[in-house]
């Protein structure tokens, strides 16, 4: 193939196909809230005594598995937060913030500051929701710009 017009048409077809994946997808508010709650539990759960800390961790990981399963079944595709070249940096930043919050939570537990999880868990909740929406926005833009 040497025809530039055909090449442009092919690129347009690819762009359209890529953009069709998220499409007009509007995932429900409860998805955000549950994801935020899971992240809050992962962070805040580190500041409570055993065995509740381990139980919270297990429940949060189970919840994470559950919403991933729901998403795959509902939309018929899956993309990890770390796969897209540009959007993955949002995911890395979120992990960095969560690790920092977990470190603060651990420190609070070690120093006997009981209210620390009450601050870090809501912070994780907000970071999770804002971060996931930001990730989706960056990813959509990344898809739109691909093959352009």
């Amino acid at each position, binding site marked *: *193939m040497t025809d*530039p017009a055909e090449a442009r048409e092919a*690129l347009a077809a690819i762009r359209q196909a890529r953009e069709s994946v998220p499409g007009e997808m509007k995932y429900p508010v409860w998805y955000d809230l549950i994801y935020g709650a899971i992240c809050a539990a992962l962070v805040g759960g580190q500041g409570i005594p055993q065995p509740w800390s381990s139980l919270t961790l297990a429940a949060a990981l189970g919840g994470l598995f559950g919403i991933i399963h729901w998403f795959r079944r509902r939309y018929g*595709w899956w993309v990890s937060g770390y796969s897209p070249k540009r959007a993955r940096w949002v995911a890395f930043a979120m992990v960095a913030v969560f690790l920092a919050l977990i470190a603060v939570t651990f420190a609070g537990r070690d120093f006997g500051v009981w209210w620390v999880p009450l601050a870090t868990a809501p912070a994780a909740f907000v970071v999770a929701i804002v971060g996931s929406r930001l990730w989706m926005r960056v990813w959509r833009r990344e898809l739109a710009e*691909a093959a352009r």
Partner: protein
Amino acid sequence: MSAPAFDPVIHAPGRLQICGILSAVDEAEFATLRDSLKVSDSVLSKHLKQLEEAGYVAVRKLPHAGRQRTWVNLTPAGRKGFAAHVAELTRLAGLAAAVP
């Protein structure tokens, strides 16, 4: 950035779109691909078979509610081949822009 390389296996319209979708995600379900491409099951199966034989996609069947669901993903070779093909298309499309 992959070196531009035209790939006739990828370039066929249906397969180009399949690779386009799969390049955007980790994996997609057969029904999602079929609905996006607006083709029949048999046409999609044929395209997937050709891509699978070229080593560009991997197909796996997962049980769900007593039925089997088919999930498809691009292999590393598929991602590389598709990236090279897109680079070639971009190069060709750029030729027209370069002509005064």
